[in-house]
């Protein structure tokens, strides 16, 4: 589904990703771990299509299509979703209202007509239940006055509504207490299917206790330096990132 080849990305002339390779198949959950500054969030932003990043080399194929050529909304319409690390507040725009627009824009892209109001409401109700988010929150302006946990839950709620093929979760666990973490993780688990995939970006192993990954990759210094299964995450948890840094600091960029 997702195939990243030799991806090189710079921000303001500074090289952040230095030849990253990653392949994600349908039905898989991949975790990307790594120390601060390794390029984890850059990877998430580049997949979603943020403009501040300059792709200097490599490619990202999504279902065989080069998505680097696509605008952020076209990527979303193709089935890519980014759950933000820091979801922003948008005064005056209610989550429900813009999701109605989003759902219909995506449907139009696929050649489908707008969703019936009744159908939309039913879906809304179902997905709200899934992530245990109140109509009170989704009816309000996006994230305005939300707690950290509510913001993250709202991200997962939006993901549930848009039903993407690939969900990229950028440090969704940061700033969450254990209860909020569990609710968010349960939401993701309910969305897992043989037809979709998730890229879970995290600094800590904690989230992976709830969202159990098929593969774990260690991102360091702009490259994936180690890949393994769930055990790799546990090893990182017990040893910290220092051994990775020691082992790979000599690698020429």
């Amino acid at each position: 589904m997702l195939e990243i080849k030799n991806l090189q990305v710079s921000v303001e002339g500074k090289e952040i990703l230095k030849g990253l390779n990653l392949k994600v198949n349908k039905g898989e959950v991949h975790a990307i771990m790594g120390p601060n500054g390794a390029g984890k969030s850059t990877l998430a932003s580049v997949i979603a299509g943020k403009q501040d990043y300059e792709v200097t080399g490599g490619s990202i194929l999504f279902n065989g299509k080069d998505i680097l050529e696509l605008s952020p909304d076209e990527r979303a319409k193709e089935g890519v979703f980014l759950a933000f690390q820091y979801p922003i507040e948008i005064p005056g725009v209610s989550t429900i209202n813009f999701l109605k627009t989003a759902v219909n824009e995506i449907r139009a892209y696929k050649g489908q007509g707008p969703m019936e109001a009744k159908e939309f409401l039913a879906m809304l109700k179902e997905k709200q239940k899934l992530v245990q988010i109140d109509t009170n929150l989704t009816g309000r302006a996006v994230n305005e006055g939300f707690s950290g946990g509510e913001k993250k839950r709202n991200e997962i709620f939006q993901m549930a509504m848009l039903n993407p093929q690939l969900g990229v979760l950028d440090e969704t666990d940061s700033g969450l207490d254990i209860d909020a973490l569990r609710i968010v993780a349960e939401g993701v688990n309910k969305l897992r299917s043989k037809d979709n995939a998730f890229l879970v970006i995290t600094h800590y192993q904690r989230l992976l206790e709830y969202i159990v990954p098929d593969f774990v990759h260690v991102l360091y210094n702009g490259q994936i330096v180690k890949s393994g299964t769930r055990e790799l995450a546990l090893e990182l948890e017990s040893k910290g990132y220092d051994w990775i840094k020691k082992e790979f600091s000599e690698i020429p960029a």
Partner: protein
Amino acid sequence: MSAVATKKDTSAKWLEQFELTAANRLGAANTSVLEKQKQALAEFAKTGIPDKKVEDYKYTNIRLYLNDEFALKGAATKLRQSDVRHLFFGGHATIVMVNGRFVQELSSLKNLPREVVVKNLFSTYKETESGAGAEFNSLFTEKASPMALLNTALAQDGISINVPKGYNCVGPLHLLHISIGTDKVLYNPRHSIKVGEGANLTLIETYRSIDLGEKTFINSVTEIVVEKDATLNNYILQEEDAKASQNNVHQVSVGESGKFNSVTVSLNGALVRNDLNVAINGEHAEIHMHGLFIAKDGHLIDNHSLVEHNVPNCFSNELYKGIIADGGTGVFNGKIFVKQDAQKTNAYQSNKNILMGENSTMNTKPQLEIYADDVKCSHGTTTGKLDEEALFYLQTRGLNEAVARKVLLGAFAAEISDTVKDTAFRTLLEGRLQVHIV
């Protein structure tokens, strides 16, 4: 650009016409109004049409939009009610002004409660009872602006609305201004609104054009008195043709425990200049002033406001928001005066603008002068581009850039349109905003 008028030219030409028509206009019955008009004309002649050298017009040179090529009267128009009906809404009682003149036949006053008295302002001055015309120009205690003086001098038509003491006028009153024709004309409509003690009124003013073939200039003055315990909601939609310009002065006096809520939405017009001057003359009065403007390429929208806290224990809040397209210009000047006696004043002001292009210009100037020591006052202004982070966020949800932009600008504008209490007008506004926000 047409020739810039000189002080001498404008006053001389228009003065001549004034002399010719003065006698027929008012008849012998009212010398006091005529006297005030003469004085105003003499005063106006000192500055003429204001240009950049006049401080309050620093960013708005009226001479670029108005000169002595403009006649004071256009050719007669033959509008029927079927031609203007599409500009009515909500079943509201509607007063129709065409090219600055009240047209009874086009108006729809069947829903007007009989308690509310609507008349041609100048016909009331012809009435022989003593004191007729005493209220004319009585609210301009400070020196009036040159454009207000020009209106005072040349006004011949307009509306007088009187809501009697204690009367709660449930349905809004719609004052519809239509510009039409193929002549270069200056119109000087003059209105007088009085909401009596304990009475309520919602007055909606709309400014529209029908097949406008030439530049026009509406130079309007509305004198408003909100008496003790009275409430006036004053909603304004300015959506004229791109050839039309207007200078619109609202001179307001609010009495004890009176409430004045204004919402001014300016969506189209070569020049839209608004002067909203509110004098708070009674304690415990409450003032809310909201404004929203979209300045398009080549258009200039200028909102000047003045709030005078003359007495203690009053509240005023002001929020103006602007969207300035590439090539458009916006001006905001908000003055708040808190007089020495006006202790316990709460006065707030905010101006927020979004610049849409490289060549968008916004000139904003908050101006607070506080002479009392026990007050709460604040002002703030922000001018910047549309939030890129918010734009990206919405795009990652599948909204293309144009749709995302429209959603964000719509939300920005809704903060103002949401303050409109009349559902029919709010719906009209929302529809017009959909058209103008691109």
